[in-house]
């Protein structure tokens, strides 16, 4: 498994480099719009940076509209982009449902659209760029199993605090993680779905898992932003030293936490890379090239073991450091 993972990244990275340095004459005098849910959120901002960066590379004029998580603004920006007769729209919708209306309006206006990260409930887009959630979760499962093996825990269960499972990315993450656990012979203690994504919610779920399952060995958070609540709950339960925490997605502080062993690992998406890929895809489409309807970007399973190795990649594609928009 490790060999496979190394092989995959050995392929992705050269591709990234090629794309980074390819000729930038494709989008001359063309105008693209990027509808971002909320540019204030680092993930989206990093993705916007990737889009800007690649648009600049390809000589596209890019307009980034941040809806600040408001559907009205998203629609208004869509209408505005349509009125401005942009050549293409890259959309990271506030949600998959809202994406449908945007796609509909763009379709009616004859403007091609590429979706980046959050999917749409319709398929009238050029291409959909998404993280490979299944692969990322599966790698995390293997990573946790390895850690437990290191700990000498031959048995025990893992509690899961999941994002809503109605979302495709949530279902893919759960399926990938559980498959890995099953292959490693580790049982699941149960799963709680987040609804309001609050600190309290994650804290309570963690306490319940601890209280109900004496053999609980780890907590897996499918989101990254409430990791502290989980840590606090484990600490409050007096299990800080007896439980492991592993997360999907990444926060800037995760690098230190992984390095410090506070966090077993994290499945890190690559928003910057996704933004770049979205622009590239639009460029290919505008030039009449055929593109894949769905394109998946690897999630980086970062642990203490590979942190140092992947740090440059993490810094660029995950955190967007050093590649800010100009």
């Amino acid at each position: 498994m490790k060999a496979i993972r190394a092989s995959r990244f050995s392929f992705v990275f050269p591709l990234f480099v090629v794309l980074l340095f390819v000729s930038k004459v494709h989008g001359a005098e063309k105008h693209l719009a990027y509808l971002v849910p909320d540019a204030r959120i680092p993930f989206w901002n990093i993705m916007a940076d990737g889009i800007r960066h690649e648009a600049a590379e390809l000589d596209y004029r890019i307009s980034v509209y941040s809806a600040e998580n408001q559907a009205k603004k998203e629609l208004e920006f869509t209408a505005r982009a349509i009125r401005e007769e942009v050549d293409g729209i890259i959309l990271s919708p506030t949600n998959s449902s809202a994406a449908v209306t945007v796609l509909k309006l763009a379709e009616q206006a004859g403007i091609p659209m590429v979706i980046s990260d959050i999917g749409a409930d319709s398929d009238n887009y050029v291409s959909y760029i998404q993280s490979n959630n299944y692969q990322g979760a599966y790698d995390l499962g293997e990573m946790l199993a390895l850690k437990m093996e290191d700990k000498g825990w031959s048995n025990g269960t893992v509690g899961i605090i999941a994002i809503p499972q109605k979302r495709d990315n949530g279902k893919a993450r759960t399926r990938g993680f559980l498959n890995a656990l099953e292959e490693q012979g580790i049982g699941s203690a149960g799963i709680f779905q987040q609804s309001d994504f609050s600190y309290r919610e994650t804290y309570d779920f963690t306490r319940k898992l601890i209280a109900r399952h004496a053999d609980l060995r780890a907590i897996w958070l499918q989101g990254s932003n409430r990791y502290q609540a989980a840590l606090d709950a484990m600490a409050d339960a007096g299990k800080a030293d007896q439980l492991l925490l592993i997360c999907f997605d990444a926060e800037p502080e995760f690098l230190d936490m992984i390095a410090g062993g506070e966090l077993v690992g994290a499945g890190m998406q690559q928003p910057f890379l996704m933004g770049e890929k979205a622009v590239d895809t639009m460029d290919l489409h505008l030039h009449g090239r055929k593109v894949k309807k769905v394109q998946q970007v690897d999630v980086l399973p970062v642990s203490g073991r590979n942190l140092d190795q992947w740090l440059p990649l993490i810094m660029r594609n995950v955190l967007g450091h050093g590649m800010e928009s100009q």
Partner: protein
Amino acid sequence: MNSTVAGDNRAPSLIVRATLAMISVILLVFLLHAVYVYTSQRAEIIDATKDDINESLQRLSENIAPFMAAYSVNEYEKLVATETALKEHFAVVVKDREMGEIIGEPYYVSGRIRSEEGGYVAYQKDSAALNERLGQAYMSDTATITGADGEALGQVSVYASDAPLVAKLHKVIVEELLTILVLSVTLSLLLIAVLRRYFLHSLQRIDLAIRHRDEEGIPLQPVPDLQYREIRGLGQTINTMLESIKESRAKRKIESLRLENTITGTHTGTWEWNVNTGETVFNERWAEIVGYSLAELAPISIETWNALVHPDDLKKSARLLERHFLGELPYYECEARMRHKNGHWVWVMDRGCLMTRTDDGQPLMMYGTHQDITERKEAEKQLSMAAGVFRHAREGILITSAKGIILDVNAAFTQLTGYARQDVIHQNYQLLSSDRHGELFMKTMLKALHEEGVWSGEYWMPRQDGAVFPALMTIAAVRNRAGEVEHYVTLVADISNLKQNEDKLRLIAHYDNLTGLPNRILLTERLRHATLVARRRKEELAVVFMDLDGFKEVNDTCGHAAGDQLLTILADRMKYALRECDTVARLGGDEFVVLLPDLSGKDGCRQVLDRLLAAVSAPACLGEGQVQVSASIGVSIYPQQPDVDADTLLRQADMAMYQAKQNGKNQYYFFQPVSAPMMPVLPG
């Protein structure tokens, strides 16, 4: 007889008829129900559609509002799509005013509409085809979408087409038809099952019971006792009918046998005639009467009769038939002659009666008989002749029964006897018995009748006035074919004249014409009879031979007439002088013989002899003169030793008279046997 009645297969089936009737009723009921359901369902569907529209409008306007306010267009569009599909609306169109502002139009219009293919497609306000289709909606309604603050966010319109209505009604119709079909089939099957189980089964049992029939079609077995009251009642009724039929048939059989025996016994020919078609049926006897067999007469029709009957009788028959057909005669009856196979005519009594008529009253079927009456006709002929004899014969004819009851007499009989016919009819033959005939006579008569069948003889027939007359009567027994005496016929001929003539002849032969005294013949008979009686009674008699003295002189002087007159006078005087039992006879001329029976010797007769001499010798007046003669008398006495016969006595008296004559006349002289050798027998 196990054969099925002809035409069974063509007869309608009770089960089929009942089932069809029930199916018809069921279909009618359910069709009416279907019409009612269709009408009510249509109203309900329309109301339900309206309700659905209103309900959807209410639900959509409430549910869309927050999404519309949040610009979650896709969400409310999903609501719309869900509601449209769920309620199967024809179309739902939403006008979003806020969204319209965003895109720079009055409304952002979205929605769902059913396509021609039946699925739903997104409504596009700029699509003429979709707008045209929207205009085909059957009904629609619109509700305003208001925000939390009451501001109008937009509108939602729900459209319904008549397609669901038609589909639902079609479904209703199909369901109803299926229901009708299923219920009809189910009920029919149930009906058939019930009919078969409770009705047909019973009928089949009845049918099975009465299936085995005799040659006349009458069931051999009674209907079994069935379970159900009504059918049991039917079975009992059938059994009662069967019993009645059997009894009736037994009676009919007896009657038929009687009729057949009667027909056979009476040698009666029978015929059936379809007056309308001329078809005719005869029995063998009918043909036999005319000397044929039925096969020889084939083909048989009314023409067979027409060809054989005498032309004159055919006309008569036709007239009688016509009168019978018209109702003037209760029966047809005609004596007709038919040509026998051998060529002669036979008489038949043709009788018949019209039994059926056609619907329009025309004669149809007639049945009758033929009776050979040839013998009867011959008998009638002979009887007619006999009747003529009976009526016109001069002899009285008397017909009695075998028991002697007088049945009839003819006119001659009434004339002979004075009895009126009604006086003797039904009277016993004893009425005509006569006292003159003794018991022996009657026994002799009856014996002759019994043994020989006939008796003939003289009979003293009594008259109504009590007198009798001599009749020559012949009684003949009339026997039937069995030889039994049925009648006696008595012929009575009056022989009174004959008897009188006989008396006259007897008188002429035995008496003297002049004096009326017995002559020699009668004297001889009486003398013989008297000698027999005297011998039997041991009595004496005397034979007196008397010859007149001087009669020749009277006869010569006074004439023969005077002599005859004198003889008459003397005869009368001698009858008066003698006893009643005495006989005086004239032998001829002036010779007389007197027979004196029952004497007591010579002395007993001397007084008589003296009175004779006195009577003869007394003067007799002849005309104006008077004459006187005397008599010489010879007497012989019987019995004598040895015995003598009458002729000898008479010769002895003659010889004694000669002695008296010789001794001087007017005296009597007894024959002396010693002188007999002197009295040779002289020829009379």
